[in-house]
């Protein structure tokens, strides 16, 4: 697959902190956990009622969900298999015909 299949099993998870405490929890979490923040682009930019989208590897996804449940922070999976979406987005280049 594209990129040697490196995103197989990766997920994008969304959470929205609704309190100061939840904001601080997420900032600490993502300052330590080397995660790929899609929005905002840095843990320091996380703010109350602002969407936080993070791309995590397959292993980290379960750990992250466990930590969020433990902190009673609501979350949902935006992309359950990133590799598939990567493949879907730019189609298979070989199928492209360019005269």
């Amino acid at each position, binding site marked *: 697959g594209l990129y040697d299949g490196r995103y197989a099993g990766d997920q994008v998870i969304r959470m929205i902190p609704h309190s100061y405490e939840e904001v601080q929890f997420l900032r600490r979490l993502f300052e330590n956990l080397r995660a790929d923040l899609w929005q905002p682009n840095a843990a320091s930019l996380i703010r109350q009622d602002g969407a936080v989208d993070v791309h995590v590897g397959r292993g980290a996804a379960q750990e992250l969900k466990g930590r969020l449940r433990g902190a009673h922070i609501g979350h949902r999976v935006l992309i359950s298999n*990133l590799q598939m979406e*990567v493949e879907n987005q730019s189609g298979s280049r070989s199928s*492209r015909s*360019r005269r």
Partner: protein
Amino acid sequence: SEFQHNYEVYHPLEEIQNWMFEMNRTHPHLVHMFSIGRSFEGRPLYVLQLGKRAQPRKKAVWIDCGAHAREWIGPAFCQWFVREALTSYHMRRLLTQLSFYVMPVFNVDGYVFSWTTDRFWRKTRSKNGRFKCWGVDINRNWRVKWCDEGASSHPCDDTYCGPYPESEPEVKAVAKFLRKHRKRIKAYISIHAYAQMLLYPYSYKYATIPNFSCVEDTAHKAVMALYSAYRERYRYGPASTTLYVSSGSSMDWAYRNGIPYAFAFELRDTGHYGFLLPESLIRPTCTETMRAVNTIASRLLRKCP
């Protein structure tokens, strides 16, 4: 064989540059292609100037796409814009009164890297000798409140501001060009994704710009025009309160450098696909954004108190 360019798919850098050469070749009276410098890895930084030969007093609009490598819808929009500018009657009329400078891929090295190695790469590909991490955030590297709130001084962070302002050759080249042409360039537009927003200064502080009423009214009209296409809602307002505070951004620098209308678009979507916006959504996203950019450009032709 006739050159066919598919505007509804994402293209790697080489195909985009071939397309630029073809636009330049096939529209000698409306298109002028030139390079404003070279990237860290030595790639040319190409710009297309659209419009009848620039008269000294003709107003101009600057549009850059692809500052952040993973935001592929940006370069797709710049290609779409050029095609529309050269084919639609309304835009052709606009080109008699305005020039457009279009930079389809600002961060050429990062864009190539996002096609070949890391689809979610954001920064440039410069290397700071002392650290193991690569790249600087192009939108934190400008000489305006550089490396203050909302930027990171750590080279491994995605919002790394760089070792010094304009450290990135890509930023330095664009800043030099905008400084040189600032008397003519009346609007600066930078295309990003995703969040569906139209942002204007300031990013680096919670203050109101002096020409707020004109800019606010233009942004309002632009998002209304965008909405008229497919009823997609874009939020709009000062970046610091609409998105978050960030320092060293190109939009703030352009505004501080005398360009009265400076905007940053965050295109579709709001998070369902994120950076992986499917090719099937290129058409509606670019169509609606064309209407917004047209509104901004047309605004320059009228006086605002």
